[in-house]
């Protein structure tokens, strides 16, 4: 190789390298994405993000696991307060009001610059996350609650494994039969008990808060201590007193003893399905949440889980990058992978069709239960679920009230009266500061 050629090769390489580094320095847009998905779900999120980064040169989404839902919301709001918001944050249903009132968000329609079509999404999900008739955040990991049951135990106790309970009384009776047969210590446990109580309100078309559940204006009153709420909690207390209900903590800690066979049924988020199915040494059945006798209103299950919020204060290019990431996540292959890996709803109609076409639901009927459940309900005001200010704290208050009754034997009316008074004061304070 002659000296000259060597020189030109060197020069060319340098120039290429320089251009390359220049390009990456200029065009690499970093998008911070805070999420609350740990364990196997966290891994699925990371896979999706990695795939996005690979297929979208110039954009780097940095996924940060920032703790539980409550932690993530707390941190996101603190970061907004500190003037350094992340780009995208995953917020659970409880944080919806807080995000709406934060003044720090960018509705999805705005992020997309009008390219977003809510009609392509599953309706109840869009309804939950809409305000003022407009979808506010990008549905990502929507779930609802359903009843899991141990089919082997049902069979062992002489029950029909394909006939799960549909009412509170049946839950009680079947539990007793299972316990009397010595098959399990207890009958049922709950994950997220306060949320299950909210589900009960929505399912029976009972309004939980004034101002249409906080959807037409800021709610100032909850109806937790009304006849319905007390009736539900009294039933639960009776179950607990008779050893039918084994209290299992506020989030997911009841999953372990369910898998270990300490009780036969579990009311839990549909998003635990993949985890439970892969760990349980028995055949898992799933069913709709049971209904309380004497209340015939038909509402629907409330949507829970998380939604991706775009935060304001970033430039055009970054907003566009966020939109690209959102669209990527809602594309059918990604939606399908996400659903299969976790149990969360595929949020677009197209993804549902694709799953049906490949026979996924026939092979995995438990994944269909959650769907059938939300599609079986009526779209009423109460069924949309509530939007409350300071909902995180309100959840804690309700959770504590349920524990007071179920664990500590406090009279349900008394426990709910106290909780209602405390919540109403919070809501009024919230209103006074957000009007």
């Amino acid at each position, binding site marked *: 190789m002659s000296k000259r050629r060597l020189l030109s090769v060197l020069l060319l390489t340098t120039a290429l390298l320089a251009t390359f580094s220049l390009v990456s320095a200029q065009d690499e847009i970093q998008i911070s994405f805070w999420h609350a998905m740990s364990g196997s779900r966290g891994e699925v999120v990371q896979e999706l993000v990695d795939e996005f980064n690979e297929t979208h040169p110039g954009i780097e989404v940095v996924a940060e696991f920032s703790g539980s839902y409550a932690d993530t919301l707390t941190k996101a709001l603190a970061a907004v307060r500190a003037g350094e918001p992340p780009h995208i944050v995953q917020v659970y249903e409880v944080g919806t009001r807080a995000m709406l009132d934060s003044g720090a968000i960018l509705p999805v329609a705005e992020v997309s610059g009008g390219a977003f079509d809510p009609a392509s999404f599953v309706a109840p999900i869009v309804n939950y996350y809409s305000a003022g008739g407009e979808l506010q955040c990008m549905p990502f990991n929507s779930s609802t609650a359903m009843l899991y049951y141990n089919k082997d135990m049902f069979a062992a106790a002489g029950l029909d494994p394909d006939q799960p309970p549909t009412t509170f009384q049946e839950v009680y009776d079947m539990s007793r039969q299972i316990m009397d047969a010595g098959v399990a210590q207890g009958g049922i446990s709950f994950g997220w008990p306060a949320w299950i109580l909210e589900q009960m309100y929505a399912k029976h078309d009972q309004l939980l808060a004034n101002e249409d559940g906080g959807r037409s204006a800021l709610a100032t009153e909850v109806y937790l201590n009304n006849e319905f709420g007390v009736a539900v909690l009294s039933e639960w207390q009776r179950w607990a007193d008779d050893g039918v209900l084994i209290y299992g903590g506020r989030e997911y800690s009841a999953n372990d003893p369910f898998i270990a066979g300490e009780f036969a049924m579990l009311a839990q988020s549909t998003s635990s399905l993949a985890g439970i199915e892969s760990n349980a040494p028995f055949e898992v059945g799933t069913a709709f949440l049971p209904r309380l006798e004497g209340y015939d209103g038909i509402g629907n299950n409330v949507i829970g889980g998380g939604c991706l919020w775009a935060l304001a204060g970033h430039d055009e290019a970054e907003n566009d990058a966020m939109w690209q990431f959102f669209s990527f996540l809602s594309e059918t292959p990604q939606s399908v992978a996400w659903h299969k890996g976790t149990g969360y709803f595929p949020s677009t109609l197209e993804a549902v069709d694709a799953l049906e076409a490949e026979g996924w639901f026939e092979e995995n009927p438990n994944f269909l239960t959650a769907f059938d459940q939300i599609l079986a309900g009526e779209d009423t005001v109460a069924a949309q679920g509530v939007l409350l200010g300071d909902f995180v704290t309100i959840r*804690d208050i309700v959770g504590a009230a349920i524990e007071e009754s179920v664990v*500590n034997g406090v009279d349900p009316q008394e426990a709910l009266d106290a909780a209602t008074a405390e919540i109403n004061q919070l809501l009024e304070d919230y209103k006074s500061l957000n009007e």
Partner: protein
Amino acid sequence: MRDYIFPNRFLPYLLIAPSALLVIVFFIVPAIQSLQLSFYRVNALSGRQLYVGFENFTRLLTSSDYIQSLTTTGAFIAVVVIFGLSISLAIAVGASLPLRGFGVYRTLLIWPYAVSPAITGAIWALIMDPNIGAITNALESIGINFDYRGNSTHAVIFISAAATWKILGYNIVFFLAGLRNIPRDVVEAAGLDGANAWTRFWRIRFPLLSPIAFFLLIMNTLYAAFETFGLIDITTHGGPGRATNLLIYKLYSDGFKTQNLLGSASAQSVLLLVFVVVLTVIQARTAGKRAFYR
């Protein structure tokens, strides 16, 4: 008084300036702001403030939640301090015996000092897990069905036991250091009088240890009150019900998880300050000049 050695006039101020500056910026100014915020109702996000006078204080002091949190914290501190001090004193006295090989025990016994409250929570959540915990299973075999998630009394016992265990290492270190400091001849002189070991300990050695015991009493109180946040946040989250909702946990929830209780959280800070001041005054009165260690 001693004579001062170096005549420099400005150097000492220069040496002290960084410490003083940090104290003012990170301690005094924020504390004053806490006091100020406690008279407002504040929206944490928009920063909107409404002056509400003493409302935050009156609400707290009339709220059953706060009172319950206060009494739970008081009981928790009492249990942790009493058991933490007495158990570690007994262990330290045993470990300080002048026997061959006891140095190994002295080293092993202070290991819990390296463990944080949060990690303590993780480990104790494991050994006391209602389903798979080794201790719970042992208890079950003697007929006790221990469930810290589903039983308030058990939850309080659970966090108290874990918090006490965590502080043992720290207390043992200090007691060992104190025991090492007691002149041997004092003990022996008493031994010659024919007093038995028990009376000898309480008459002779304990009075000499009491400054340390008192110092530890204060430090353990502060630990139980403030440092146990991680333990609660990892394990019970204040539940079941409000059984383990200690003041520090409530302060965090109100100040950071809730948007409109910043004022209330500040009022709680002020009340905590009062609590610490009272404690320190008691210490200053009783103990006079003594070092503070963490």
